[in-house]
């Protein structure tokens, strides 16, 4: 249990680890893992080229069905990476590989590697529970627990054995999710009493509360109206100062508006099965203005069948 043993709850991590690691780049796996929850504010902007999640030669199968083939995709720190592409091309599948949510699907099988700060998430001794505390997830449909607003945000820290001031953490998380002012007077009310957009921001606050350093978002705005969508996009731009974000979206303008880098996936029609492949990965500006691949251009200009 070398790795899993070091995947301790973030709150117990000594913050001075950060300095140790930065001064010596060649540290052991364990030390690297221990640093990831150091406050991102202490990370210098020049660090943004650092790869947080390195997906290499990823192949995913659902039973006999080859859902995703040979995807290699580096996710960089403090950037927003957008995954776009037609329905069924495996965007959610790739995303769910980044926090081992695919473990929950009986028939899913993953090959290749997803390295999180150098540690392969699919190593024998990695505990998926620890992974998910560091790589948070926001789902397509807002899914608050049938509990109070406060309890929703406090859920992750509580099960993670958080020992600090929970009230402060809840306030901080809600503030970061741009929801605090709207809910500060009704923290004990049911989360179901909030609007859809507020619920989604609550889910973001809930994910932030476990202090992850990566946030995975699977079409977080698809159930929301344009105003709520706009607020979440604004929020994402704020959040990337502190977190690295991967977002799946069907909304091309959204990808263009918020993301730094864009990965375009499609269904490979040359294969016998409807297997998803990564066509092109580049700076968002490049993908949307002068893509290398014809297929990318067809898709973003709406000529895709």
């Amino acid at each position, binding site marked *: 249990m070398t790795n899993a043993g070091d995947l301790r709850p973030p709150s117990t991590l000594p913050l001075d680890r950060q300095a140790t690691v930065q001064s010596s780049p060649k540290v052991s796996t364990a030390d690297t893992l221990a640093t990831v929850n150091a406050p991102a504010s202490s990370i210098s902007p020049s660090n943004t080229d650092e790869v947080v999640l390195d997906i290499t030669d990823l192949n995913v199968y659902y039973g006999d069905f080859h859902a995703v083939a040979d995807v290699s995709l580096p996710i960089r720190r403090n950037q927003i990476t957008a995954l776009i592409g037609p329905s069924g091309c495996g965007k959610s599948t790739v995303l769910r590989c980044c926090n081992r949510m695919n473990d*929950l699907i009986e028939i899913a099988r993953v090959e290749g590697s997803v390295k999180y700060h150098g540690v392969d998430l699919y190593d024998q001794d990695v505990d998926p529970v620890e*992974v998910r505390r560091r790589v948070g997830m926001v789902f397509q449909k807002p*899914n608050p*627990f049938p509990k109070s607003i406060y309890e929703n945000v406090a859920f992750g820290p509580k099960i993670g054995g958080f020992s600090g001031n929970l009230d402060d953490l809840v306030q901080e998380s809600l503030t970061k999710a741009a929801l605090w002012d709207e809910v500060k007077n009704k923290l004990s009310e049911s989360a179901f009493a909030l609007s859809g957009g507020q619920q989604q921001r609550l889910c973001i606050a809930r994910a932030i509360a476990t202090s992850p350093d990566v946030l995975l978002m699977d079409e977080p705005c698809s159930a929301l109206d344009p105003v709520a969508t706009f607020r979440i996009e604004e929020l994402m731009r704020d959040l990337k100062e502190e977190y690295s974000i991967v977002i799946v979206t069907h909304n091309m303008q959204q990808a263009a508006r918020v993301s730094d880098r864009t990965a375009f996936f499609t269904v490979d029609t040359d294969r016998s099965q409807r297997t998803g492949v990564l066509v092109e990965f580049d700076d968002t500006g490049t993908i949307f203005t002068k893509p290398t691949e014809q297929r990318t251009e067809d898709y973003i200009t709406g000529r895709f069948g």
Partner: protein
Amino acid sequence: MTTTTISLSGNPKRHRRERVVKRIFWASAAVSVLISAAIVMSLIGRATTFFVEVDKSSLVDIGWFPRRGLYDLLTPLAGTVVVSLLAMFVAVPLGLGAAIYLSEFARPRVRRFLKPILEVLAGIPSVVIGFFALTWLSPNLVQRVFDSAGIFSMLAASIGVGILITPLIASVSEDALRAVPTSLREAAFGLGAKRSETVRKVVFPAAISGIVASMILGLSRAIGETMVMFMVGGAVGGGIRELNPLRPGTTMTAAIASVATGSDQVVGEGLTFESVFALGFLLFVFTLVLNTVSDRFVRRARERY
């Protein structure tokens, strides 16, 4: 210029058929209401006769011996309370455990195999369970653990009744657990909750109304259960008021059954025959209250999502 009048009144034949179908369904609904009303009326009539004519001092006595004019209503009432509570002690842990295992832990293939078995168990006639309790549970379990227990005891009957209602509790609460949306489980897992934490802190609380309803349903089934107690409870002709489960005892239902199956001419013996209706009426009120309460729980469970 000719105008054709359009008829929107439809096909008269279809209208007639529609009316007939509606009446058939109305009739079947009406019959069930009539039957219920008839039951209540028949109970109330004789029960009133009993309560008016009975010597009030015989209502509280050493025991329930209807053929000797001793109508201690507390005896069958106490027996019912003892037996159904003990049965719940057996059935709730077993039933809930099975439900949680099936809905949250079992692989789909295991569930497909176990669920039908559970449903078959629910259909076992109570006389079979009664026989099993008498010939196996009582000598091999109850008498072996408690030296003082006879072959007939309320405890043996309670375990039998417990086994009888376990599948009911398991199946209804499993439905309640499965009705909790997957999105809530994913939310919990995504925050780094272990499976057991997800069950305890999210799924179980979300399904609590349905689970309570399953327990109340089980309880009213236990209260209404006759055969097991009749066969294993001892005290067939009547019994001393008894709270010790190792002793023989009688419940409301078993008391009714033993008078109704008596070989002597029960109608001639003073108020013996009427006393059964008094018991029946009490039982009716008892289960009516329970069913109303459980109905409320079920409805609240449905409204939740």
